[in-house]
């Protein structure tokens, strides 16, 4: 009986985060006063632009490397690609494809670098990749703020700071703004659906499903569960882990490009930061954990995350006369969720270990419980 209790308890534990969000959103939707059509439209847009980025987190989790905070490296690579195509004034779908092509080598190099570093910091992947993100951010700023327009020729003056070198704070991506979203126009009632974007996302999902069934995917699962055993079976552990990070970084690069084509403006110096934080928060809100995440978590998470942020400011305004409360919420909640998820993860690991050891711990348990 208590075993059953334990089962229900840990089930609740596992889904605590999505449940909280569902409850909050359910309360906030009527308060916000938004129409259903508006909500659906907003959600369609936001889910479309974010999902790809979040999906890029799945593969490192499978390989046991936790949440890849290093995905911001990919986002930076994508932005570098976008800066170049803006400079070359290549518009439309070709612009997007070219930005991806230009971004890829950067993403691969950064991914290999990140993977190699993480191999030297086993067990500390998350914190390492987070710090590495800061470090590479410095390199990125050096490149974009000083080298571009100086060592790297940038011909379009609209991109360059008035001092003659360095890229401006905000770049308007007019040439590629929403070109993917509007590639296949579809309107249902008043709601327009970004069909092409969703097709790309669907393709990505198929990729993940297929990838899981490959030998490489199987090896990653093995490494994720027990590295020494995988190693002793001859699976090239280090190489495989680097591959996982490279795939994630490259996909994050594409994800960032898709994200920015929808936004239409590139905040040169902080778009990528937000990409990492919000994607990870969304994934965790979807009920994923540091060691377990699936496509379902991505979509549940991204939907709840955005639903919350659509309705919260309005609900906040209607309730307290202040819209800022929503924006405040957004940042607060993102970081808060990540913190909670990390604590939960540590706690769960501890609990599992205790459970395994329990048989031999004897009366120590008395202390433990107190």
């Amino acid at each position, binding site marked *: *009986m*208590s*075993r059953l209790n334990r089962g229900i308890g840990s089930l609740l534990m596992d889904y605590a985060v999505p449940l909280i969000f569902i409850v909050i959103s359910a309360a906030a939707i009527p308060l916000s006063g938004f129409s259903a059509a508006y909500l659906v439209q907003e959600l369609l847009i936001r889910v479309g632009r974010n999902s790809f980025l979040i999906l890029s987190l799945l593969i490192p989790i499978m390989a046991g490397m936790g949440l890849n905070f290093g995905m911001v490296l990919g986002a930076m690579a994508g932005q570098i690609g976008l800066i170049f195509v803006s400079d070359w004034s290549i518009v439309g779908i070709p612009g997007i494809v070219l930005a991806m092509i230009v971004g890829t080598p950067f993403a691969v190099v950064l991914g290999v670098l990140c993977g190699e570093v993480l191999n030297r910091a086993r067990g500390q992947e998350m914190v390492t990749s987070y710090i590495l993100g800061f470090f590479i951010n410095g390199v990125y700023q050096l490149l974009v703020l000083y080298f571009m327009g100086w060592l790297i020729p940038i011909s379009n003056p609209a991109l360059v700071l008035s001092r003659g070198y360095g890229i401006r704070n905000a770049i308007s991506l007019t040439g590629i703004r929403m070109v993917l979203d509007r590639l296949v126009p579809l309107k249902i009632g008043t709601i327009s659906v970004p069909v092409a974007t969703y097709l790309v996302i669907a393709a990505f999902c198929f990729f993940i499903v*297929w990838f899981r*069934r*490959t*030998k*490489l995917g*199987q*090896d990653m*699962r*093995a490494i994720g*569960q*027990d590295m*020494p*055993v*995988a190693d*002793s*079976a*001859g*699976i090239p552990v280090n190489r495989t882990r680097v591959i996982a990070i490279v795939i994630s970084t490259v996909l994050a690069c594409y994800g960032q490009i898709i994200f920015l084509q929808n936004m239409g403006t590139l905040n040169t110096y902080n778009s990528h930061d937000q990409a990492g934080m919000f994607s990870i928060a969304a994934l965790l809100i979807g009920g994923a954990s540091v060691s377990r995440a699936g496509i379902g978590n991505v979509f549940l998470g991204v939907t709840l995350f955005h639903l919350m942020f659509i309705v919260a400011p309005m609900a906040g305004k209607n309730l307290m006369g202040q819209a800022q409360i929503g924006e405040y919420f957004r940042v607060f909640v993102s970081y808060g969720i990540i913190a909670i998820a990390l604590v939960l993860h540590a706690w769960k690991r501890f609990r599992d270990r205790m459970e*395994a*050891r*329990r*048989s*031999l*711990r*004897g*009366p*120590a*348990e*008395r*202390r433990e*419980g107190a």
Partner: protein
Amino acid sequence: MPEVPLLKLENVGKEYFGNRVLAKVDFSLNRGEILGLVGENGAGKSTLMNILFGMPVISGTGGYEGNIVLDGRVVRFNSPFDALEAGIGMVHQEFSLIPGFSAAENILLNREALNGSILELVFSERLNTLDRPAMRRRAARAIQTLGVDIGVDTIASEMPVGYKQFIEIAREIDRTRTRLLVLDEPTAVLTETEARILLDALRKLADGGISIIFISHRLQEVKSLCDKIVVLRDGNVIREESARSASIRDIAAWMVGRQVDDSRPPRTGKVSDEVALSVRNLWVDMPGETVRDATFDVHRGEIFGIGGLAGQGKLGIPNGIMGLSPSGGEVALFGKKIELDTPRKALDSGMAFVSEDRRGVGLLLSERIDWNIAFTGMQVQNRFLRGIPGLGNLVRIRDDAAIAEETERYIRALEIRCTGPGQRAVELSGGNQQKICLAKAFSMRPELLLICEPTRGIDVGARELVLNTLRRYNEEYGTTILITSSELEELRSVCDRVAIVGEGKIAGILPATSPAERFGLLMMGAVGDGDEAAQREAAGNA
């Protein structure tokens, strides 16, 4: 023309940080031959096999001396993969299965069956998808060769220990190249039936031309399975003998270098009338060890044995009492009811448990021996702590001297072979690690100690030591002890009373001094064989 042996060891030696573990080891092995490698805990058996298999721990600690000759050529493996490549398969003392993978996935780990695709031409084979039906078929075939019935989709973490062992062996069988199979104590975790199945399977493999090196502390098995026996003592080959001509007594004597003395001093412990543990209508849903309806009492200060054939439910009883398997019924410790199904409650009431599945849990492998032994006692009973003079008991610091003393005591009592209390547990031989588990449970000083299979993996000489220590511990502290063991003789020699479990029920409880035939009858299913009388008799003794 004399046959070139498949494997020949010439003067193989090994030192760990100046501690000589193997001196000049010489022996040879022919095709299709089964060689039994026996020796005390810490004699160097696992080390020798690690050398043969090119384990990194060997090269990482300075390599080895001498030569390994395979098929007439000297080989020197730098990694296990070289050894695998040369056709050597090894089943380790520790398990190496991926917990969340199915039996099939584990058997074919890194040798998965793949669907072809053009991607393999462009990139690598690793982008091919797994051919799961083929994997299932191959795994099923390997499992079948072993003669056991394990579903290929069973998840490793949910398997009973015995299954895991078969899966590991099946993995080696699936490797077509395997010519020499090394098994390090494969039967230690198996029930008798499983062990018999395994031995039959090994015989079949040997008849098919695979050579086998078999390490075990169960000498009976070694004698019945092997063609040749090599006895290792303190890193030297003491004896190489045909299995047919050597008697088990001889082998034991060669191993420990003296006649094994299995007499025990007369029992001096006092068993009181007070009931320590009362079990009424216990049922336990433990896979393979179901308990249906067990009722018995254990008295304070008693050593109570639970025996019976494998699979009848004897292991289920302690596991059920501890709440490790779903269970029901009434269990009380010193009159206080214990809530079943919650390990917490069981532990709260002052019981300690040594599981039959000791691998992987319980020991902090990378910690020192003394820490492993003293840690829980320190946490729970505030032992091994002393106050700082002047501060009273406000601040207490670790009493390293007390810890060292306690550790030394157990090292001596159980003859744990180590370089000292400061050695890390991971550096001990398998049998010595198990002794640490026992020492740890002892040092917690519980009111009721439940021990499953206390001598599993422990050599013939040390087995007496362990049993005597149990006895002495019981006599010194008056601890009530419940021992579950598949070896009836062991139970009879150390316990006051022994219960035999059959079909999930207590078939009968007899004083340990009863003649062996009466136990035999109970085991054979003669339920109710004077158990009433026997119980009265036993109570009278108490």
